[in-house]
């Protein structure tokens, strides 16, 4: 029956998606380590001097992070294609929300409404970044590509 048709990622796709996700994370880490050394608290190693990269690549971390974690989350969550699609969409929403959280107007609003929030680590982390339309676009592209990766599968008849 058509209603029982399930989509499962091919084994090869599953592995390649996972590989792509980890590769994206590694590239993202290296990007921060060499292009933005000393700016991130999570860097275990970074270059002594920042290497200049094109401004076109400024939003690369947003793309890589969205792409990698959308894949990882949907693979970890499993389920059918619809569920994996929903997972990618949800992660995309998280990343978009985080980006909008960096709007200066929002930070000012929070400062006024809840001055103590800026004293919290999580509050500052959420609001301290720099809003960028390019980042937003990178997030959307990353999520779209991740969705393609995890939703490609063969049609299985039960």
């Amino acid at each position, binding site marked *: 029956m058509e209603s029982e048709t399930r989509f499962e990622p091919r084994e090869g796709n599953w592995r390649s998606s996972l590989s792509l996700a980890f590769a994206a994370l590694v590239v993202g880490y290296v990007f*921060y380590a060499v292009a933005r050394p000393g700016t991130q608290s999570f860097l275990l190693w970074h270059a002594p001097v920042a290497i200049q990269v094109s401004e076109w690549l400024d939003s690369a971390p947003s793309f890589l992070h969205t792409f990698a974690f959308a894949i990882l989350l949907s693979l970890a969550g499993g389920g059918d294609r619809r569920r994996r699609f929903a997972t990618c969409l949800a992660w995309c929403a998280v990343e978009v929300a985080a980006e909008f959280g960096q709007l200066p107007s929002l930070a000012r609003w929070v400062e006024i409404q809840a001055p103590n929030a800026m004293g919290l680590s999580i509050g500052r982390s959420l609001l301290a970044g*720099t809003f960028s339309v390019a980042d937003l676009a990178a997030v959307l592209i990353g999520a779209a590509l991740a969705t393609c990766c995890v939703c490609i599968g063969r049609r299985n008849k039960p």
Partner: protein
Amino acid sequence: MKSRLHSATRLVLASGVLVAGLYSLLASNTTGGSPTTPQQWWTGFSHSTVWGAFAVPNTSAPPPAQNCSSNTPPRVDPPAFWAAQAPNITDHSDAVGTTLWSSTDLTCPRAMEQVYRSVLVADLSDFYTKFPSGTSQVGNRISKATLQFNTIVMTSNSNPLGFPCDPFIGAVGKVNVLQRNDVIQTGANSTPVDTTLRAGLVQASPSAGPFDGPTTLTAFPTRGDEAADLTLIGAAGNFANGSLVIADTGPGIHNVKIDVTKWVRGATNLNLPLLGFSIAGINEATITVTTPVQFACRNWIEPIELRVEFL
């Protein structure tokens, strides 16, 4: 059972990935070092960071003439105002250290009353190196900025030396020249600066770069610019959108610390390498031109530092 275990494993796995994703998402917004401790950067004001709007070529300038025509024009014009580069700055430090209170027009106090004010400029270029090249909107990472200086404040038009010398701090990263008897238009309200506010601030921001002196001068104060009431500079009070704190209430020299977060944030977002504050007295309505304004006032302001806390 197998199915349940499978689901539980997936749940744990998904939760782990979710936590890692959220953590790295937040961490990427956080600069190096402890994420809970804001970093600090400050610039101590010195001759390398301060421009005098009125540079004086020698330290043995004579006191102002006792007779001065009210029509005496100021000796400096805008180009000269900004031409006062560091090499031209003369150390007037005597009793309280570095001062900005000087004028090329040492013969007539009118120069100070008229248009031009001393300006202290903080060099922010070092601050930008804290961030990776190409980082935009750096100012949004500033959580607090304070400007600190010593001064002798006056709460009225009288002081032991017989002239008013209440200072005010002007705009940031912008021209901060306030004309005496200027009128600030805020919406439908007109506020004569020197009679109502008694001290004022004008923010005049160039609409476009380069953000250097000449361009900035084109953004001379215009009606409708923001004005700050520093009438209470002799005591804690509101200072535009920040706060003013007199750390040392005197008598004598006061240690003044003002919150300039908003301005510094705005200036850095504009990538302004230099950031200017003006300091001047505006209670000059009752001054007689025979009063030696410059000679006495110039020793009364001592900028200390601009401190910036950022994430």
